[in-house]
């Protein structure tokens, strides 16, 4: 039987947090009004903190002398393992809201489980992150309902975002051998358990927002093998520019 790879698990989760953080940081100065602009970058910083903690631990477990910065800034696209949903672009505020809402429901559950494991680093990171993510969920649920059950245009935009992002949801419940080992060791809910938790919450909130979900359960996946949608490469180009142009720059 294959050995459990905790480092891989931390990299995958850390990458999702990192890419979400970057998408949020792109909202800086583009919020619909000042208060929300500050909120968006605030939430991005929460996610960046979670990503940093997870990547520091991943690098340590990996034991190849790489740092969290090496992982964030020196890996090419095919060595990134964030969920495809997290890299989808900020097409409009509806896409930002739906993407971060879907992920917040998921991450709250992921962190709830991790907060109970018998590993002080993981449970510590998770307990701290959970406080933050519960607020993310509250914030994005507010926008989901407000805009879904808002004007004709806001409703239409939200419905479009739900429809367009729906095919990336299935990947949240995908499992490979390492995930199954993590489930056995109590680090993760199984894909089926997670799907049931996630779907119950989301369907109820979506209904409150007077929206619907597509009937198709077609799911685009690939991130566990480092295969991404076209958007990640552009993001990394911008995110990694400084390290690529001035390797190991200090400030």
């Amino acid at each position: 039987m294959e050995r459990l790879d905790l480092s891989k698990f931390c990299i995958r989760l850390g990458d999702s947090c990192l890419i979400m953080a970057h998408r949020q940081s792109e909202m800086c100065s583009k919020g619909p009004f000042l208060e929300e602009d500050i909120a968006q970058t605030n939430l991005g910083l929460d996610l960046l903190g979670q990503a940093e903690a997870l990547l520091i631990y991943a690098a340590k477990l990996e034991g190849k002398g790489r740092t969290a910065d090496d992982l964030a800034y020196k890996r090419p696209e095919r060595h990134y393992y964030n969920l495809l949903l997290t890299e989808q672009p900020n097409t409009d505020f509806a896409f930002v809201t739906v993407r971060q809402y879907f992920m917040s429901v998921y991450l709250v559950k992921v962190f709830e489980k991790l907060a109970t494991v018998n590993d002080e680093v993981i449970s510590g990171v998770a307990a701290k992150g959970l406080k933050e993510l519960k607020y993310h969920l509250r914030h994005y649920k507010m926008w989901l309902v407000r805009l879904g059950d808002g004007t004709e245009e806001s409703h239409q935009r939200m419905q479009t975002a739900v429809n367009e992002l729906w095919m990336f949801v299935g990947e949240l419940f995908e499992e490979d051998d390492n995930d199954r080992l993590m489930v056995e060791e109590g680090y993760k809910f199984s894909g089926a358990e997670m799907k049931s938790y996630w779907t119950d919450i989301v369907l109820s909130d979506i209904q409150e927002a007077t929206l619907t979900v597509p009937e198709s359960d077609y799911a685009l996946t690939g991130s566990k093998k480092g295969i991404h949608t076209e958007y990640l490469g552009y993001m990394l180009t911008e995110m990694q520019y400084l390290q690529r142009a001035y390797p190991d720059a200090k400030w």
Partner: protein
Amino acid sequence: MFIQTKKGLPFKHAGSVHAFDKEMAIQNARDLYTRRGEGRGMWVVPADAIVAVDPSDDESFFDPSNDKIYRHPTFYELPEGIKNM
């Protein structure tokens, strides 16, 4: 927007936020004013619910107390151990 820095202390005005309703107001207040451990309690009150003294009425509201120093408890010694007074 009012912040209480510690349980038991009074709430103090910290600033203003824009919002369309109570839930958005409390979230915006949180994102603007409690990011650096400023408090443990928070009130957000609609501006039109606050009754304020018109600046042109300042004299009749505040000046009459100027010559009545005996209203200040400055002639008493504070017992030791009293921190917030």
